[in-house]
């Protein structure tokens, strides 16, 4: 058997077999619908990703401030007490004033 000739014949058959370019009914509609749903999901993912980043940043800032408050040598127990005392006085100032008037 002449293999070269056989190969040529088979390739000629493949060349003669032009594939059809038929597209399934409403294929473009299906693709557009698929893309629209993907876009919606992507937008949602974008929000979720943004919110997670914000949450991580907030947690990091809270940790940093906490660490700073705990380890800062200038924030002694006495000043902390003063601060809470001052805070309480300020908060209850209006009540104290109304007591004094009565």
């Amino acid at each position, binding site marked *: *058997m002449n293999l070269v000739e056989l*190969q040529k*014949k088979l390739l000629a*058959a*493949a*060349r003669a077999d032009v594939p*059809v370019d038929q597209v399934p009914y409403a294929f*473009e509609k299906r693709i557009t619908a*698929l*893309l629209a749903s993907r876009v919606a999901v992507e937008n949602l993912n974008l929000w979720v990703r943004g919110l997670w980043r914000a949450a991580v940043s907030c947690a990091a800032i809270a940790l940093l401030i906490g660490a700073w408050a705990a380890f800062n040598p200038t924030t002694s127990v006495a000043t902390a007490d003063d601060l809470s005392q001052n805070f309480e006085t300020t908060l209850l100032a209006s009540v104290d004033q109304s007591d004094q008037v009565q």
Partner: protein
Amino acid sequence: MERTEAELIAAVLKGDAASFEPLVQKYSPRVFATARRYARRESEVEDIAQEVWLKAFSKLQSFRGEAPFEHWLMRMTVRTCYDFLRGHQRNRESSFSELSEPENDWLERFVTQPETLTDNADAAKLLIGRVLEKLTPPARLVITLLEIEDRSVKEIAELTGWSVPLVKVRAFRARGEMRKIVAKMAKDKYL
């Protein structure tokens, strides 16, 4: 008034996904015809076409508009078909002993009366389909583009993203691979 391709692409890039539909409608016949060269089942062809359009949509920002949209899309189609071939390497180990009757007849006529054979015979199409299925994915892609679609080495390099020397090397190997498969087919039939 009908919008131009550039206008449609600009609209899609601005977030109007509906503007993609006319592009899908216009170029899907070419995408489907190309996919049918590599996949036999219609469901596989549809999967390839869908994958092509999803990729085209997500990578549309990389389309610079220097070449026609169709060329950019066809590159994507050929590469998606290649990925499909790599993912579906089936039937490569089977023998040619289970040829159908028309295929056996065609081979016998090739030996006895080769002048009577036409290129358009269905049996020959089935046989070449079997031979192509046994090729490795790069060999199949090169044989299809070079020998069946009659494209130049430069065109193949552009479509596949391979360098020109790589296409030549792969074409050389693919021809050798195909020769071996055709020889095996003849051996399975007559020995």
